[in-house]
């Protein structure tokens, strides 16, 4: 029962913050799809269907937070690179502030309880 509850809760939290993580990763440099998924899995413990990433990137593009471009590689294989836009950067700044304030409040609650 406890494990089931925690698993459900964890899945929901992860689903909710995936776009937040993607924006943070893209704020460092541009990435193509597979590379981005690899990076998400490296920095976090995400274990989601990798295909989920593409509709999410499309949504971020529609919202004007991310842009994409096919880039020809020396290897001959083109890659679709995703980068954060100016609007994406300012949105991310606000999101980061919210996250820090939220996590500090949660930490306070946890500390009070333990």
């Amino acid at each position: 029962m406890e494990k089931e509850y925690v698993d459900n809760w964890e899945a929901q939290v992860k689903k909710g913050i995936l776009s937040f993580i993607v924006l943070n990763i893209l704020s460092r440099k541009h990435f193509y799809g597979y590379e981005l998924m690899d990076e998400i899995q490296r920095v976090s413990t995400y274990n989601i269907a990798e295909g989920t990433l593409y509709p999410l990137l499309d949504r971020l593009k529609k919202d004007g937070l991310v842009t994409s471009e096919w880039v020809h590689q020396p290897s001959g294989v083109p890659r679709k690179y995703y980068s954060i836009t100016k609007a994406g950067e300012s949105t991310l700044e606000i999101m980061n502030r919210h996250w820090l304030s939220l996590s500090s409040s949660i930490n306070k609650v946890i500390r009070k309880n333990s």
Partner: protein
Amino acid sequence: MELKTIEAQNVFEQYLRTLDDAIKRLPLSMQKDLRAEISLHIIDSMQASNKETELDRLRDALDRLGDPENYMKPMIADYAVEFATSTFQPYHVFLAIVQNIGIGIERTLRSSFFFLLYLTLFLFVFLFVSKILYPSHTGLFFQNGGFHAFGFLSNPQGDSEQLGGWLFPLVILGFSLDYLLITLLMKLTRKRRK
């Protein structure tokens, strides 16, 4: 994109057909982009896999990607709404609604069913209270020797009530069974969702 073995090539093409089918309602340029992106993703993922055969590496990559029908759903629904609202064509508005309902249909059906069960629960309580306040208006009514009504009658003239005080244990039994059924179904759906 060519793979070395026929088996792997067949599995790869089958996956792309499923993908094509899942995204067929998107604009052609988008379909082309997604097809190329997902194909490249599969190749990259195969290269990173430590499985021995090409077919196993491919299966590994496809497992990690997931089923296109599932992961493309939000995008298809999103696009349908966008297209419908930008064109204002009734047919597309209708399609968009159907797409979005499709996603939530299982949830909708489940909640409607639970709603009905809860409503029945409430009806049992109503019958119980009503029998105390209006005993002659509540119960199982027969007219001319045949069934006429069960529940509450505003005008029971010509009817004879059959249950009397037996209505109370019956209602309690019904309430308990209904409650048990709700709890059992809740447990089942929770397990299935997991």
